[in-house]
Structure formats: structure tokens, C-alpha cells
């Protein structure tokens, strides 16, 4: 069992900006685009180069047979894109990868689960989508069901399952996928703590069996426990590749590891242009310490440090707050009266937004920052996913959750003012009485 399992050389993946817009694209745009390119043929010099973003660039590495490789990097570093390219979900723009052995990918648990079908049917369906054949699933069926612990409901449509049961069944199927090369993306980041522990245990078994595993995670503990070697990606490229301990060391030292601060040491490479350059973004607690976790009831602050390089612009720093599903929670514009509508002289500025307590829901919040002028609209600098923090709920009964200790869904969790209006107990014919009353 020696030799190479995966050899990636010069893998690159570019997206055209505007592909995101094509997401809900319409034929009219495509026709207009075709018209434009026709016109472009006539007046070639006015053609604006289509802007491309490289999600992966020149990624090369080898993974040996039986090796477990952890892939780390901050959000947007290209980890998921790399897994998608290696899983053949999307194809690379440049380069190639040679794969020796059969690949199974788990980018999600429960892919293809159909709510109307029973647990039994979904085991077969999901299994075949993951690449198992019918006989194999049938042979392992009892084992899968036992592992999931939902025996009693196996003939019930999964739409009637609790989310926990659903996850357990989905993971049970995934855990029985036994390819030579296994590609796993943070499927462990779901479910409760005991479920995660079970998943982690299973992953450990898999790596100890000598299977080749590629594993993406934000969880450094899990990575260092499961993977002897690691690959650090940043901005689509390989920053480090080697023994996990040293790669994690590089990651933490580079400041990429913490999501609470983002600093640009080299101003020429910082986001911005001739008017504004970003210098740093930091998340602080209410008391002022740099932190990755904010108390749900206390809130905190997000500060943006930037240089103004040209006099005379009215500048408005602004932030966008997203939750972990990518939903935009809200946008905030700097409304500090001191600089409102007033051109700023050159200098270094720090804008701080104070986030009140009892506003955000618990969970991860990713902050994008920008500096713009509103009239006319000019975007001087922007950085999406600049920093991130976790909002932690300490179950304070004085907060919006009251005495309820269960899961509270929702994008925000504001503390509302509640009032109660209590009438006297009404008697037999409330309507007649009400009408009769003067």
C-alpha cells in the first residue's frame, strides 16, 4: 500500500464575476450579452475585460495511499472549491489531478434524502447516490439502521423525523461508504455534541483502517487528532503543506487562525485604492478586548481602521452582517454626526460600530466591511468576510428567551417590550354583554 492516491498539479478554478448574477440570470441578459459581444467585435477597444476571481490558483500537492490529509484555511480560502474539484462536482479551469483509486465524497450528509419517502427507501436512495450498489446496501442495511438508532421509525416518511433522527440516519448511511479515497467536508459540524463525538469516532476508525482521507474542517483539534499531515490554503493557493502540527502553527501565527481580527501588514496589498486603504478590522467585546465570542446580552463592537490617502471625500464606512447560512442579517452605515456629510482630510481613522445586546441570534456572524461615498456612489474599499465572531447565549432568563431553554431559531433575537392586558373573567354570554354595555 504505497504510492500516490491523489496528485494535483497546478489546479486552478476561476469564476467570472457576474456568474453569481447569472444565478437568477435571465435569457434577456444572455441575449443582451450576446448583442454586446457582437457589438464588441465591431468596436473591440471598448471591450471591458470580464473580471474573473480565482477561487483556486496553482494548487499542487500529493496525497499518499493510506494518508489522512487535513485541509485548513479561513473562510473563502478555497477549501470547499478544492474538494468540489476533486469530487468532480465542478471542473477545474486549469491544471489537472490524477486520482488512483475510487473516490467517495461526503460534502453533506443526507444528500438526496426525499421527505416523502420512508427511512428505508431513503437509505437505499442515498446509498446509491453516494455510489453504493443495491446488493451492498441490502447487505449492510441492518447494520446501518442499528447504527442510526431509528429502527422503530424506519418505515415512516422522513419528513416526520426530528432533525436529530434525520441526521443520525443520514450519517449512518454515509458512515458505511467505503471507497479507497474518502473526501469529507465538515459534515461533523452539525448535530449536537454527542452526535459530533460519534461522527468523530467513526472518522477516527476510518483513518486508522488505512484509508486515504481528505478532511476539511475548522476544528483544529479534530484535524490534529485525525490527520498526521495538513494543507493550509489561503486566497486559493497553498500556503503550507506538511506535518499537521507545523501547518497549524503557521496558520495560527499568520493571524489567519483567528477570525476576530484581520490586519493588512502591507498597505499596497490591502483592499482599497487611491482614496482609501483598509488597515485592520477587529471584533471587540463591550469592554474592549479583542474576542471571537460575544455575549448575546452584552453585544460588542466592530472596528475598522483605515487610511484616507486623498483629501476632500465624504466617506461612509459600512458593514454587512451575515449569519452562517449566508443570510444577510443587516447592513449598517456609519452615522457618526461628526463626519456625516463632511469631507475627511487625509489621515488614519478608526470607526467603531457598537452592537447592542439582545439583537443578534446565537451562532456565527460574519462581517463584511466597506468604505463608500454615497453621492455619487463610489465604493472605495471593501472586504467581504473580513472578520467573524460567535454570539453565545448564556441562557439568562432576563433575556429574550425567558425561561425557555430549548433551541430558538430565527435570524435575530431582540428583546421586545411586552405588555399584558387582562380583563375580568367573562360570564356566559360575553358577546351579548359587550354589546349591551354602554
Amino acid at each position, binding site marked *: 500500500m*504505497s504510492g500516490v492516491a491523489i496528485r494535483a498539479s497546478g489546479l486552478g478554478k476561476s469564476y467570472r464575476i457576474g456568474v453569481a448574477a447569472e444565478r437568477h440570470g435571465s435569457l434577456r441578459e444572455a441575449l443582451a450579452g450576446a448583442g454586446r459581444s457582437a457589438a464588441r467585435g465591431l468596436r473591440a477597444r471598448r471591450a471591458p475585460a470580464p473580471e474573473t476571481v480565482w477561487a483556486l490558483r496553482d494548487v499542487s500537492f500529493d496525497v499518499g495511499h493510506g494518508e489522512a490529509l487535513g485541509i485548513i484555511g479561513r473562510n473563502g480560502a478555497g477549501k470547499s472549491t478544492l474538494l468540489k474539484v*476533486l469530487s468532480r462536482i465542478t471542473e477545474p479551469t486549469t491544471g489537472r489531478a490524477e486520482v488512483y483509486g475510487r473516490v467517495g465524497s461526503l460534502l453533506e450528509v443526507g444528500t438526496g434524502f426525499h421527505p416523502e419517502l420512508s427511512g428505508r427507501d431513503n437509505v437505499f*436512495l442515498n446509498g446509491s447516490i453516494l455510489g*453504493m450498489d443495491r446488493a451492498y446496501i441490502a447487505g449492510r442495511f441492518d447494520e446501518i439502521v442499528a447504527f442510526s438508532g431509528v429502527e422503530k421509525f424506519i418505515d415512516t416518511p422522513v419528513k416526520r423525523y426530528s432533525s436529530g433522527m434525520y441526521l443520525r440516519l443520514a450519517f449512518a448511511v454515509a458512515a458505511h461508504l467505503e471507497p*479507497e479515497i474518502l473526501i469529507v467536508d465538515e459534515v461533523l459540524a452539525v448535530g449536537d455534541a454527542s452526535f459530533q463525538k460519534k461522527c468523530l469516532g467513526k472518522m477516527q476508525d476510518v483513518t486508522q483502517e488505512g484509508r486515504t482521507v481528505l478532511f476539511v474542517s475548522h476544528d483544529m483539534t479534530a484535524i490534529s487528532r485525525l490527520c498526521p499531515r495538513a494543507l493550509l490554503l489561503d486566497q486559493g493557493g497553498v500556503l503550507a503543506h506538511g506535518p499537521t502540527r507545523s501547518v497549524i502553527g503557521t496558520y495560527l501565527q499568520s493571524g489567519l487562525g483567528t477570525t476576530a481580527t484581520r490586519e493588512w501588514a502591507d498597505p499596497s496589498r490591502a483592499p482599497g485604492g487611491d482614496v482609501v486603504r483598509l488597515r485592520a478590522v477587529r471584533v471587540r467585546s463591550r469592554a474592549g478586548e479583542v474576542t471571537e465570542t460575544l455575549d448575546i446580552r452584552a453585544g460588542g463592537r466592530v472596528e475598522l481602521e483605515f487610511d484616507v490617502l486623498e483629501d476632500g471625500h465624504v466617506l461612509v464606512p459600512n458593514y454587512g452582517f451575515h449569519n452562517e447560512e449566508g443570510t444577510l442579517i443587516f447592513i449598517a452605515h456609519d452615522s457618526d454626526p461628526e463626519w456625516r456629510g463632511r469631507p475627511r482630510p487625509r489621515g488614519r481613522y478608526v470607526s467603531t460600530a457598537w452592537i447592542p445586546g439582545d439583537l443578534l441570534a446565537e451562532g456565527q456572524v460574519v462581517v463584511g466591511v466597506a468604505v463608500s461615498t454615497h453621492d455619487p456612489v463610489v465604493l472605495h474599499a471593501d472586504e467581504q468576510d473580513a472578520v467573524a465572531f460567535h454570539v453565545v447565549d448564556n441562557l439568562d432568563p432576563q433575556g429574550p428567551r425567558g425561561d425557555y431553554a430549548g433551541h430558538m431559531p430565527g435570524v435575530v433575537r431582540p428583546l421586545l417590550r411586552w405588555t399584558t392586558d387582562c380583563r375580568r373573567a367573562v360570564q356566559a354570554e360575553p358577546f351579548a354583554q359587550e354589546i349591551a354595555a354602554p
Partner: protein
Amino acid sequence: MTLNSHVLPMPGAGSPPRGEEAPTLVIEPSPRFPRLGLRELWAYRGLFLFLVWRDIKVRYAQTVLGAGWAILQPALTTVVFSVVFGLLARVPSDGVPYPVFALTALVPWTYFASALTSSSNSLVSSTNLITKVYFPRLVIPLAPVLAGLMDFAVAFGLLLAVMLAYGMVPSLAALAVVPLLLLCMILTAAGVGCWMSALNIQYRDVKHVVPFLLQVWMYASPILYPASLVPERWRMLYALNPMVGVVEGFRAALLQTRAVSWGVIAVSCAMGLVLLLTGALYFRKAERVFADVA
């Protein structure tokens, strides 16, 4: 190795190579001109059949009438058509009672319309699969085309029952042409389904185009009226619409309104084949962006 024997074979996978042998799989930008990838499609036939089975099973989940809908749809349409076009407008029906005349056309047409509709929407409603798992994407628009045959079989049973009720018995010799007509109908639905599903995931306009397309297509096919109304010299051009061959073939074979027109059927089948080939090739070419635009 026995451990892994359940995993689907990848193309080009003989015995699993190690070390410096040929790779099992090479991932690189795909060539400019798409290939159909039939071998790989064949390797994934198990998944394909599972998707067909899922479509059939899910179709009437939580409905009261279940597969009764497969009968009701063509039956009710037949009643409406018989009243409006048979009784009121007195559209000629080749000497056959109008209800049988209409139902004979509506059974294949209902299949075609519903197969095409679900095939067109199939990719868009499978984005969760496309962005998470690899398999030949062509199975997605093809599965509903096959799954629709279940409803077709039920409706075909209804047609035979109605014919018997009217005292008409199809000759066995004529029935021999039916499999060919089925093939033509499936090819056409699959071909247009490939085109529409691949366009739909990129341009959601398609979702609005398909119902309109089907409406126009129905009037361009001899559903309400006999093909004999179309002037003789236009027949071959008319047959370029594959549903003309299918519907006229059904009438000729089952109702024996006239001799089976092999020329028309040949043109329709050829057209169906062209649609499927171009559709599959376009789909394969567009496929590389599916995961990015889904």
C-alpha cells in the same frame, strides 16, 4: 480490495492501479467538444433506476386518488374535447367516435407533456444533488421521462378499455408498430427534456416557456383534429414534428382509421433521434457550469 467491490466502477477502471500505473481518474478541464459519456452512463444505471423508482414512488405520495390521476387527466380532457370539438365544433374524426379519436391521441400526448414538464424542471429541483455529489448529470432529465411511462401504461389500459366499450378491437399486427411509436415518443421527450433542463438551470425563463411551448406544440400535432386535414404536400414537413408520427401512428394502429404511414413514422423517429442527440450533446456541454450556476 473485496471491501471496495461495491463501489461503482469508474470509467477506465480495470483493476485498481497503484503507484505509477495509469490513474483511475484524471480531473482536468473538459475538451471543447462534448462527448456523450455513454459508458459512464451505463456504469451508473443502478442510480438511474433508483431515481426513476423515486419519481414514481413520490409522484402520488399523499394524494387521495393516487394513480387514479393517470386515468382522470386524459379521461376528463377527452370529455371536454368531445363536447367542445366533437359535439359543438363538429371537428371530423376520421369516421371514429370522437371520444375514442381524442383519447387515442391524448394518452401519448399526456405522457409527452408531463414527461417534458418534469424533465425540464428536473435539474433545477436537483440542485442539492448537483452541488454535492458527482454522477453523470444526464440521468437527471432522463429519469422523469422513464418514470412517466408508469402513468402512460395505466392510461393505455384505460384506452384499451374504452375501445372495447365502443366495440373496437385492435389487430395484433397493427399493435406491432406500437413499440416503435413508444420509442419515438420517449426519444422526443428525452431530447427536448435535455435541452430544456440544461437551459432552465441557466435561464429560469425556461420555466415560463415550457407551458407555452407545450400549448403551441399541441395545436401543431393532430390531437384535436385528424392529420388528414393537413394538405397532402405538407405532410412530410408536418411529420418533422415527431408527435405527428406518434399520434397518427397510434390512431392508425389502434383505430385502423387508415394504413400505417411508415414514411411519416420514419421522419418522426429520425427527428426524435436528432432531438435526443443534440439535446444530450448540448446538455453535456452546458454541464460544466451547472454546479456553479445552480
